[in-house]
């Protein structure tokens, strides 16, 4: 049952995520809060952002994000604050530092590698065409024929 796990884990209670009473009056701040929430992990859920989660902790974190924003923090300040408090586990977008560089560079490196191998291979496939085109005998024969 592929979904079974997903299901059981995602849903402890019906998903309700952001509650009406949490929504900030200032739409600009609220938008920023939503955007930030989407990148922050609900620590007790699996692979769920606090924006989607219905867990109590997620609600606390959403409220916390909004408090910081109302207090005038920048987006980065809020993120730093949460990372300091909960560890980098809270970030759904892993930071590109240290060993994580391997994660971030995996795609471009593999693409370059794969693309490079592919080009070398394709060039190799093209070569026999030139070699096979005409052998020496054939060339002399062709030359003879062309004389006529």
């Amino acid at each position: 049952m592929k979904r079974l796990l997903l299901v059981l884990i995602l849903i402890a209670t019906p998903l309700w995520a952001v509650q009406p009473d949490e929504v900030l009056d200032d739409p600009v701040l609220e938008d920023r809060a939503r955007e930030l929430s989407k990148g922050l992990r609900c620590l007790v859920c699996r692979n769920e952002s606090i924006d989607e989660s219905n867990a109590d902790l997620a609600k606390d974190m959403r409220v916390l994000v909004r408090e910081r924003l109302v207090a005038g923090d920048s987006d980065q300040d809020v993120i730093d604050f949460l990372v300091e408090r909960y560890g980098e586990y809270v970030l759904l977008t892993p930071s590109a530092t240290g060993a994580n560089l391997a994660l971030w560079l995996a795609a471009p490196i593999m693409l370059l590698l794969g693309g490079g191998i592919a080009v070398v291979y394709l060039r190799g496939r093209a070569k026999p065409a030139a070699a096979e085109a005409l052998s020496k005998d054939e060339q002399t024969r062709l030359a003879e024929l062309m004389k006529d």
Partner: protein
Amino acid sequence: MIVELGHFTLILAFVVAIVQSIVPLVGAQKGWRGWMAMGEPAATAQFLLVGFSFAALTYAFVTSDFSLRLVVLNSHTLKPMLYKVTGVWGNHEGSLLLWILILALFGAMASWFGGNLPPRLRARVIAVQGAIGVAFIAFLLFTSNPFLRLEIPPFDGQDLNPLLQDPGLAFHPPFLYIGYVGLSMSFSFAVAALIEGRVDAAWGRWVRPWTLLAWLNLTIGIALGSWWAYYELGWGGFWFWDPVENASFMPWLLAAALLHSAIVVEKREALKSWTILLAILAFGFSLIGAFIVRSGVLTSVHAFANDPERGVYLLAITGIFMGGALTLFAARAGAMQAKGVFGLVSREGALVANNVLLAVSCFVVFVGTIWPLVAEMFFDRKLSVGPPFFDMAFTPFMVALAIILPLGAILPWKRANLRRSMQPLWGVLALAIAVGALVWTLQTGRTILAPIGALLAVWLVAGAAVDIWTRTGRGELPSKLRRMKNLPRADWGKAVGHAGFGVTIFGVAALTAWQIEDIRVAQIGDTYTVGNYEVTLVDVARVQGSNYVSTMAQIDVLENGRQLDRLTPEKRVYPVAGMPTTEAAINNGFTRDVYVVIGDPQDNGGWAVRTFIKPYANWIWAGAIIMALGGILSLTDRRFRVAAGAKRARAPEQGMPAE
């Protein structure tokens, strides 16, 4: 009694599978015809035995036989009949039995429809398929036996997880499993070819329909799962980059790559060793997927999923089959000599680019999925890799794929002239850019996502149409139409499949960019506006369902003052399972869905209501279905049915030495 018989036939199937995996293999090696021929009846027998076993388990579920542990844990007398049946595979043990049933079915199909295969190759394919069967039946019998009885049967069961009591999810696993297990056929063909030491055009032709069948079922399965998540989880997401989802997505990506590289093998006798490797890896990712999902290694925060024994066993199966096949590959790949010669710019070149993009994108998903595990084990960092990462790292590959697709699809084989090949596509490109620009101007101050999505979608869909059109050659319209009708089904399948990809891209881009969301507390009788719609909360009432209690809201949706629909979102509680679920109510439309969810009652007597306008949501799954349809069209191509080319290729085979 029937249950015991089912248990017994499963054990018999295990024995038959052992015979099936050894005798034909030895026969093929020694050239003993009798031993080779043993594979076919064995494969059929294994399928019939597993089939009976599965039927016995289904019988136990249908008759609510609560002396069976599995039935107690996953069923209930009050459950609707449909879900009693689908409950058979709504759990680890039953779903594994379904997996084995499909595995046996594929082995049997290889013997039923493999008449045009050289006997040696067929014997080996069936033997490898049998070996996979042995591993999984042993896994089922020794670690997860579904036929265990209880000494003291309870009066009633504990019910199936209510979220699984849903048509979308009920039929999601069978499709997915046909996909996963279907890739075992490609794997068996690859291993058989490696033992044989030769891969030719005919091999490419034989392996393709199996891959196509697996891929199209995987497409349907994934689409069903995504659609289910959309309407059931209550906030209308369609893809979460969850390890469990990625587990099904990775084999899909590799199967798509395999599908394309097998064409090069078939038409041009090149890319042989790469195609073999892809076939091995595609099934490898199916196994890794099974491991991820069933071992709970990536979800270790949740104790119920944590079963080290299963995990170790599955890891061992994966290790043995991948290790064995890759070792064989390393030893034999050198013998695969490519014949076809072609330039960098050619259909072959485009298909290689397709393969690079698909394979690397699969690799990216894989790295992202296992990175938290790697980081914790080796770098002592506890971190998350979530949707933002995947969106960022994965999307460029799909965009690149979409950009090169229409051109690659019409490039001639061997050697192409870019300028000449682009000629019929300039109009399409202009149209695509125009539509993208139009979308850009119509939406103000939003992301560039939607215009790009629209541009790519038009480029793909119109490009597919041009692909078909250019195939009809020169001449008057009637003769062109006639030729169009007579084009091979595979050509139509290709165009339809590619167009479906475009439709899905547009759906994803439009939904992501243009979704409107409204969260509020509404009193009964309140009317408010969301987008172009007026929404009224008419009533909320308690309703008794067959095996649940529901809080059902009546919500009117008006468009331009006219009643569009009355939606009834629910919150259900399943008392036996002790679980609540949300049932979103959706007004489906061609250009948008109106999606409402009822939440909790508030202190002031109102209800929390969430309303979404989801533009072009259905296009996501429609595109997937169109892709699958393309697969079906290709599959019905006469070449695969008649296997005309196969007969031709068989003649020289007999004259060749065995090894």
